[in-house]
């Protein structure tokens, strides 16, 4: 399998791909696991402003649960992890409903720190409203999963058309619901 997209992403991160950049943000990684169509929309800045309860909730949990500490908005190239705590990367999510996408978003941060900045870190997935925390580390299996996701993301965001809408259990709480289904 070609490793083009991963190489290009690394080159973009190092500033070597100005003419042909390929960026993957944490949110894009998460969307890839939630909904490929949403990822395509996100990649093209298609914004739908439907007043949306769960989107609003996500923002509030971010801002309120960890008080002052989140004010330092970490921006590390393409990624902006929620916060670094005792040298660990912490990803805060309102609920554990979509755990795997959040886990992969966090894994991507760890991978990015490792590959782009040569910084090795452990991760923590935190659900403050449920008082649950889960440790995430970058083993070989996760590393491969992240890179394979990067390849798929590249294929999706460079496609002319978005993937077709497919009904998922959480569609109704998505900001793009009306956009997809009318």
């Amino acid at each position, binding site marked *: 399998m070609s490793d083009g997209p991963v190489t290009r992403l690394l080159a973009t991160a190092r500033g070597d791909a100005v003419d042909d950049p390929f960026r993957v943000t944490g949110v894009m990684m998460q969307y890839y696991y939630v909904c490929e169509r949403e990822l395509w929309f996100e990649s*093209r800045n*298609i914004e739908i402003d439907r007043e949306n309860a769960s989107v609003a909730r996500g923002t509030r949990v971010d801002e309120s649960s960890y008080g002052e500490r989140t004010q330092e908005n970490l921006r590390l190239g393409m990624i902006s992890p929620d916060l670094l705590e005792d040298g660990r990367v912490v990803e805060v999510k309102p609920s554990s409903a979509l755990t795997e996408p959040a886990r992969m978003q966090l894994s991507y941060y760890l991978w990015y720190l490792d590959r782009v900045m040569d910084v090795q870190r452990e991760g923590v997935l935190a659900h403050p409203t449920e008082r649950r925390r889960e440790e995430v580390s970058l083993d070989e299996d996760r590393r491969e999963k992240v890179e394979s996701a990067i390849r798929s993301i590249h294929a999706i965001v460079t496609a002319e058309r978005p993937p077709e809408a497919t009904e998922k259990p959480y569609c109704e709480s998505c900001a793009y619901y009306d956009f997809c289904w009318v």
Partner: protein
Amino acid sequence: MDRNYHIFSDGRIERSEDTVRLETIDGEKKHIPVEHAEAIYLHGQIDYNTRLMSFLNDHGVAVHVFGWNDRYAGSLMPERGQTSGRTVVEQVRAYDDPERRQTIAASFVRGSIHNMRTNVTYYNSRDYDLGRVLEDLDDAVSRIDSTKDISELMGVEATARRAYYRTFDTVLPDSFSFDSREYNPPPNPVNALISFGNSLVYANCVSAIRATALDPAISYLHEPGERRYSLSLDIADLFKPVLTDRLLFRLVNRRQISRDDFRNEVGSCLLNEAGRTTFLKEFEQTLERTVEHPELNRKVSYQYLLRLEAYKLKKHLLTGEPYEPFKRWW
């Protein structure tokens, strides 16, 4: 969905603490709850300042201004949601491709005629014989696919609308004779009602379009206007039969609107204060009315249907997925 507020009196609106205050010229004070406002419609002479505009911008509230003869004069739109270069590029691309433009324009015409037809069918089943009009509308629909350019399509639309307007003299009482559609200025009460209603539909479509980052000046059926928001004209045509015409029939036939609700001037006829108040109240209630949406599996307001129409068009432009025009389904 949030509601519209209409101001007819002359006076001043300003930000007052965390709300909007209207002070009329005769000293009356009213508050407009900004949290529940979609847009504010100014029909009178109103002063306002930039502090108010920033405040309304923060709350995503639009302002639509109407001038002489109830004519739409312009809008002040919240900044949010109206900047997307890609959306505008795709909008122009579709306009510039004759085949794509024709397809989109044909959809608008198909939807418009369908919605006219729904009104005619309704009255046809209630003691009026409108079979001839139905035939003319069906004939127009059958010609849509063979039109070769926009002007032919416009011709089909115009023929259909003329046939449709014949319904009005049949359905309305003799004291409200319609004759034909004329505006600038409207010569009689029915034309005055249509003009007023359609200008409200138009302004509501501007709001809906601007909320989606589509450019309201780039249109498909109507020529992109130099001065008008012509995409609003495209979309408004779909909704005029549902929002303006049905309401007009109801208000006149139930005598909620009478000839006393108009003021006649030389060569023109306009609703007076009482008439506008009656019409507007009912118009806003219509916008708030809800209907079960078959695809979304929830109830949506008539007003939200305008927003959905803008979403559908935007989706078509950005994804290439087909655009299905609004066709009244209930």
